[in-house]
């Protein structure tokens, strides 16, 4: 209810707002003719998780690595903890923790050796034993990296990113390739890190991850941020009221006819299932039941759900996240 606040109240609320630790200003990166990142601007505050959500090739990694100082932008600026990444990289490196997308740690070294190695790079590293405990890697301390499971590798990568006690964390697809259980466990760890007041920027193409983990989400495609806000703001602004999913059980359905049903705002079919976006779920469900009865469609596995980030992405781009 911003309208009810006085100007002074707004100002003091701003002053109390946590510091901006990550700031990208108009970053641009061109590869040949291709604009991989096109005018990327973003802020992340202390104690905040911001997610970059986008399909493969959207430019997430390119944008993040320009922010980290690992790639040189063609234009724009990246300021981390008040330091210009490309001019003051040396001073900055000790303050940021980075988990690169799918980077492999040294194959022939054990978990303990890797942590000890990385600890030696920092002035005041976290005790290796604490990290082993925090990431449940104690039993694997003497296992070589090449023998770790995917989830253990991701946990180790996160532990390595944390060794230097960074205020700022960049996590590029931290949970890709994990089974749901391992993913949920890692989410808990990342949420704890946020509670400690760090600024975290992560990339993902899992809408559920964006919804559950992120305070704010920037939806990205073709190198641009299409929309930005809290998951709730985004679904409210761009998503349908709700979605109805059904399995026509192999029977052929005419999508054009479904689109004409009451309150339906969008239709698509995938993997044999049909998805209807609707502005009024009860109205659509009634219409759908009538439609099915007339054509004796089985209508098995009928589900209604509220809109998701995936629906937002669909509304913004006409494509799905996992194309």
């Amino acid at each position: 209810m911003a309208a009810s606040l006085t100007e002074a109240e707004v100002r003091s609320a701003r002053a109390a707002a946590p510091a901006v630790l990550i700031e990208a200003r108009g970053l641009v990166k061109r590869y040949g003719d291709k604009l991989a990142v096109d005018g990327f601007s973003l802020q992340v505050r202390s104690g905040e998780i911001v997610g970059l959500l986008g399909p493969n090739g959207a430019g997430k990694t390119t944008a993040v690595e320009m922010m980290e100082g690992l790639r040189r932008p063609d234009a724009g600026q990246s300021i981390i903890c008040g330091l210009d990444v490309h001019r003051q990289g040396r001073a900055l490196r000790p303050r940021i923790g980075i988990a690169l997308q799918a980077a492999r740690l040294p194959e022939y070294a054990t978990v303990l050796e890797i942590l000890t190695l990385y600890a030696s790079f920092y002035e005041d590293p976290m005790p290796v034993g604490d990290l082993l405990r925090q990431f449940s890697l104690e039993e694997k301390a003497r296992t070589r990296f090449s023998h770790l499971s995917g989830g253990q590798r991701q946990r180790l990568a996160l532990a390595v990113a944390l060794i230097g006690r960074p205020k700022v964390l960049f996590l590029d697809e931290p949970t890709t390739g994990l089974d749901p259980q391992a993913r949920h466990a890692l989410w808990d760890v990342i949420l704890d890190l946020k509670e400690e007041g760090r600024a975290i920027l992560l990339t993902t193409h899992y809408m559920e991850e964006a919804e559950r983990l992120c305070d704010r989400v920037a939806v990205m495609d073709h190198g641009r941020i299409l929309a930005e806000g809290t998951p709730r703001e985004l679904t409210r602004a761009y998503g349908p009221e709700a979605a109805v999913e059904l399995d026509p059980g192999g029977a052929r359905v005419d999508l054009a006819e479904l689109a004409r049903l009451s309150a339906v705002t969008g239709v698509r079919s995938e993997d044999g299932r049909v998805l209807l976006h609707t502005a009024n779920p009860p109205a659509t469900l009634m219409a759908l039941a009538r439609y099915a009865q007339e054509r004796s469609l089985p209508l098995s596995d009928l589900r209604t759900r509220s809109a998701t980030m995936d629906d937002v992405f669909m509304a913004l781009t006409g494509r799905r996240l996992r194309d």
Partner: protein
Amino acid sequence: MRMANQLWQVLMLNVRQQMRNKSAFFFNLIMPVLMLLFFGATNAGSDTVTAVTVGLVDRDGGPVAQLIRTGLQESGYFEVEAGEEAELIRRLDAGKVRAVLVLPAGLSEQVAVGSGPAEVIVHWDPTSTASAAAQGGLQYLIQGLETFQKEPSIAVRDQRLDSTEQLGLFDFMMPGLLVYMTLNAGVLAIGTAVSYQQRAGTLRHMFSTPLTMGAWLVGTVLGNHLLAILQLSVIWCVGIAFFKIQLPNNLPGTVAILLLSSTAGIGIGLAIAAFARSGETAMPIAIIASMGLTFLGNAMMPLDHAPEIVQTVMRFMPSYYMTHALQQVTMKGQPLAAVLPDLGVLALTATIGLGLAAWRLRRTVVTAA
């Protein structure tokens, strides 16, 4: 203190990589030992070369022939088996004799008259290293005997003793093996390992921390040094245990040359890794480089008799200077001062290689375009 720990950690990273990667371990340590055992077992039983059987076809029957026969027998390195040329060549083919010396009729007369160089023929089998050695030995000995015609007899014995050097298998082998091991570890093993780490993102990850290029390079080079010293110890212990090889004549000098060679080798290896497009190209390039350097560097095969062009190429190989320095200092016990030019070439190679690698890795790994 922190820097020392950092260097130690990077050093150990590389040593572990080399010791735990089974294929790197094999080529760094097992292969050279096997080479030593094979060469040693097939060519020699003790620290000196055992007598080699050579065939002698004496169509001369004169004093010169007699002189040669006695010379061969007294040298202690040859056992003489007289016979017919055709039969002896068959035995050469079968490996029963290592070379066949044919003394033509009228040899003594020709030498006495002094009418131009008298020709003797040595048949040998280039597929056998023992035969090649025997052929070299025979040539050397006969040249020595020729001198004897003009000089007092004591001079002959000196010349013959010198010939042990031509035949002393390990004189040639130990420096050669050291060069092979050093190049294998630096160029091939580290080169491919670093190229892999680059491709897999391991290096990018490490350089996204406060780790500096300088610290990483120094740690990596020191790791290779530790490996070189381990290699030297292993090969020499095996040599001593099986073939009664002596300790290097100038041990500190040998270690110094070895460390410089190891730095040059890893400089070449890192430059290859840094410039190769991918791991798939780095591997063959590293193999070609390490093999080329080993074989064209006078290390595994003597190139004294190689064609001119090969000899020219040889002089551009840093490994040639490694081999030469090791032969002089390790085997002959000369001081380092005697091989300063060799050391200079190695230091230059190391500087160029490491400099190029650092320059390139800064642009590709530390900050990508």
